[in-house]
């Protein structure tokens, strides 16, 4: 299955033989991600599907340079993330479905804090805050404490935080987890907009409909291994199925049987 392993110069995300082990019972290592190699091109949305515990979060955290792989290489927007993580991080926007915001700060303060961590100048942060605030329709609550905001409003603050430093790589770990229809729509729109701006997006989800709607290519991860990384139609052809749901089950079952 080496057909999807290609080293492309146009790809903004490149993962080569990424492996991550954790400590397991009795000191034996647990392999969370065994050997992940794939790429995501500019203007491409890559959907990462897999059952719980398959290694999705670990893989995405490695790509976002939150954790260090046990072995393998990551190239983010042309920068080697293993040797110069801080340069790579400037190109990455990371959002997880579990992430909340600082309740005692206002959205404006949250944005200023993260802007400063990305070493943006204060005027630039202020300008960017205005831009994002009007495009995400946040003006009405920009100066209210975050713990008084609704889930949808909080989600907008998170999106603004991700987009603040204008990253060209977006890594989203189950970003729609537990959201209502309105908030979910906000997220999906934001993903599509990023694609139009020619960014690379990788996101994990359990929602097949979401993946079918958005993704240019689907990666399926199971027991720490990437089983495929193909466009939806190709995946359905290979598995002789008619929708993603069936294709996903076919891939997983084939592997489990082997």
């Amino acid at each position: 299955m080496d057909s999807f392993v290609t080293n492309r110069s146009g790809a903004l995300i490149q993962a080569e033989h990424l492996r991550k082990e954790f400590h397991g019972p009795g000191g034996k290592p647990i392999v969370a991600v065994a050997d992940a190699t794939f790429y995501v091109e500019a203007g491409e949305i890559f959907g990462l599907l897999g059952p719980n515990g398959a290694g999705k979060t670990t893989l995405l955290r490695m790509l976002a340079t939150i954790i260090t792989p046990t072995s393998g290489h990551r190239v983010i927007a042309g920068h080697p993330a293993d040797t110069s993580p801080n340069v790579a991080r400037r190109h990455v926007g990371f959002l997880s479905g579990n992430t909340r915001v600082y309740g005692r700060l206002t959205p404006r303060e949250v944005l200023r804090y993260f802007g400063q961590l990305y070493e943006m100048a204060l005027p630039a942060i202020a300008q960017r805050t205005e831009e994002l605030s009007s495009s995400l329709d946040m003006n009405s609550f920009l100066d209210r404490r975050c713990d008084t905001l609704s889930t949808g409003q909080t989600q907008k603050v998170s999106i603004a935080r991700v987009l603040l430093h204008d990253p060209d790589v977006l890594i989203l770990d189950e970003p729609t987890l537990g959201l209502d229809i309105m908030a979910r729509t906000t997220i999906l729109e934001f993903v599509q907009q990023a694609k139009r701006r020619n960014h690379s997006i990788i996101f994990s989800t359990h929602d097949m409909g979401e993946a079918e709607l958005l993704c240019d290519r689907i990666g399926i991860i199971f027991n720490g291994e990437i089983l495929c990384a193909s466009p939806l139609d190709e995946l359905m052809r290979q598995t002789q199925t008619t929708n993603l749901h069936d294709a996903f089950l076919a891939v997983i079952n084939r592997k489990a049987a082997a």
Partner: protein
Amino acid sequence: MRLRTVLVIFRKEVLDMLRDRRTLVAMIGIPLVLYPALFVFGSQAAIMQQDKLDAAKSRVAVRGEGAELVSSWLNDKEKYLLLDFSDPEAALRNGKVDAIVELPDGFLKLVNLGQTAKINVRYDASDTTSQEASRRVVETLNDQYDELLKQRLTNAGLPESFARPLEVEKVNVASAEKTTGAMLGLLMPLIMIVMVGVGAFYPAIDLTAGEKERGTFETLLSTPTQSLEILAGKFLTVFSIAVITGITNLGSMVTTLAFQFAQLQGTDSELAISIPVGRVVLIFVSMIPLAFLISAVMMSVAVLARSFREGQSLLTPVLILIVFPAALATVPGTRLTAATQLMPIANFSLLFKELMVSQASIEAVLVVLISTTVYAAIALIIAARMFQREDVVLSVDAGLPITLRRSMIPPRDVPTPGMSLFILSLCLLLLFYAGSYIQAQFGLKGVAATQWLLFLTPTLFVLWYARVNLRNALSLRIPSLGGFIGALLLGAGWVVWSQQLSVWQDWVWPFPEALANEMAKLLQFEDAPLPILLLVLAVSPAICEEVLFRGALMSGLRKSMPAWALFLCVSIAFGVSHLVLQRMTITAVSGIVLTYMVWRSGSLFTGMIGHVLVNGVAVLIQSQSLPPAAQEIANTALGSEHRAGFPLWLLGVTAVFCVMGVAALELSAKRRRADLTDPPS
């Protein structure tokens, strides 16, 4: 580490914390209210209580001959209500009367004829009104005493000074400052330390576990910041809040006291007994490393929690652990000594107390400052390590870092050198802090407790927790016959030689007599029956100390050093555990002999045999329980006056025992090696 990033994080966290009501309450609210309230209510309550007592009339019954005369002395209607009971004793018990004045037979005669009449004032000491009544009655009767004395002197034609050859008055030379300081020094350090802990409590949790719970730690790590910068920013925040809490507490405390004393002194000497500024500054300066230490410890513990709630349950024991050493200053008589000035937290507490009475030397201040800073640095390094661990900062699991959990530890045959040293330091620390106290307090029972609870239990617990094979680590094997006989012979020979060595040492380097007496008194040898003495002083150490030294320590160090270094380490550690310098050397040499037994025989039981022999015979000698002939030899050899040493023939015979024992052990070792190398066919 980039300072700019650290400051960005610091500024944000401070802003965040200042908007947290809990932090504000702990930092400013409590100190501002607590001290004035404490003192106002305290003194108000005392005054009210006094007023009540003053106002109430004391109900007094007078009984016996001459009651009328005494009743006339007590005729102050404001103070006394004179009552008559048929059974005044019962009335006093039932609280119907507050005091009984009991007059002796022939009272009037005695008084009139110039003799001494004994008056009993009966009262109930458990009742404050009864106490007050007795105080008043005694006061009144004393006034009457002066009156009667004056009359008698006048009648005899003598001047009043005749009955007053001396007039003695106590004059307190302690400055008002010092007296005040001594009073305050008892409680203030404890309150202060606890308050600094309370100040650091919520920020430490919120900035670590809270951030994990919100999922924002992950987000932070995805920005171009390093975990050390995150730690530095957060630590500065917790530290600053702890310091500010300390300052507000100290400030509020000092101001309240100043006003209180000004009031007590009367308005003319306003603020006269303020606490000297210089010492307040010193207290403040030494509080900074303390706040540093507490913040660092709290952060490295709190980061292990995955939620705010869990953080609270992890940090509460830490706060309690801080209270104990802090409370040391409230124990009367505790002082800064060479040992206590190194004890974390306790040293600040004691320094604070001594500064209040201006006793602390500048050296002591420096030692406390420097040692606390060192502890704080160690705590911060630990916190930094925690922050750099992915499994800690991103943990979805609660509690200990995954790699420290028992289920995650690979089983092993022998402990690592690190584990062994950890066990040793743990046991020694327990011995230094708890053991010496327990032994002083509980004598023989304390010695037994030290052995079983402070040596054996922690050793076994750590080995169990680290999933070490106990049989291997502790060499719990039945010795070969040669090993067994060797240990018996060498042990028997060494019994005499170890005593002889102590005699020789005494000639060169005598055991201080005071110390010897004190130790003998502590152990209370005479009181306990012989079997108990043997159990506590011979059998228990043979089991517990062997498990620690020849077991856990020796098996852990064995592979990482040559034999001579192993002998040295195990024996010195063994010597050090006997606390008194003079005892250390002899014990260390005995330690070499015991180490040798276990090393050669491969069985811990040989060490136990040797240990029982050496200690057991020493106990028998001390308690005069040997057979008469042997006891006589021992008494001549070791008696307190001569200490002549053992006769040459005995030294010769036991030397032969030793040599034979060594030979037997060597032989058994050779056979053991052969068994190991030649696999059974």
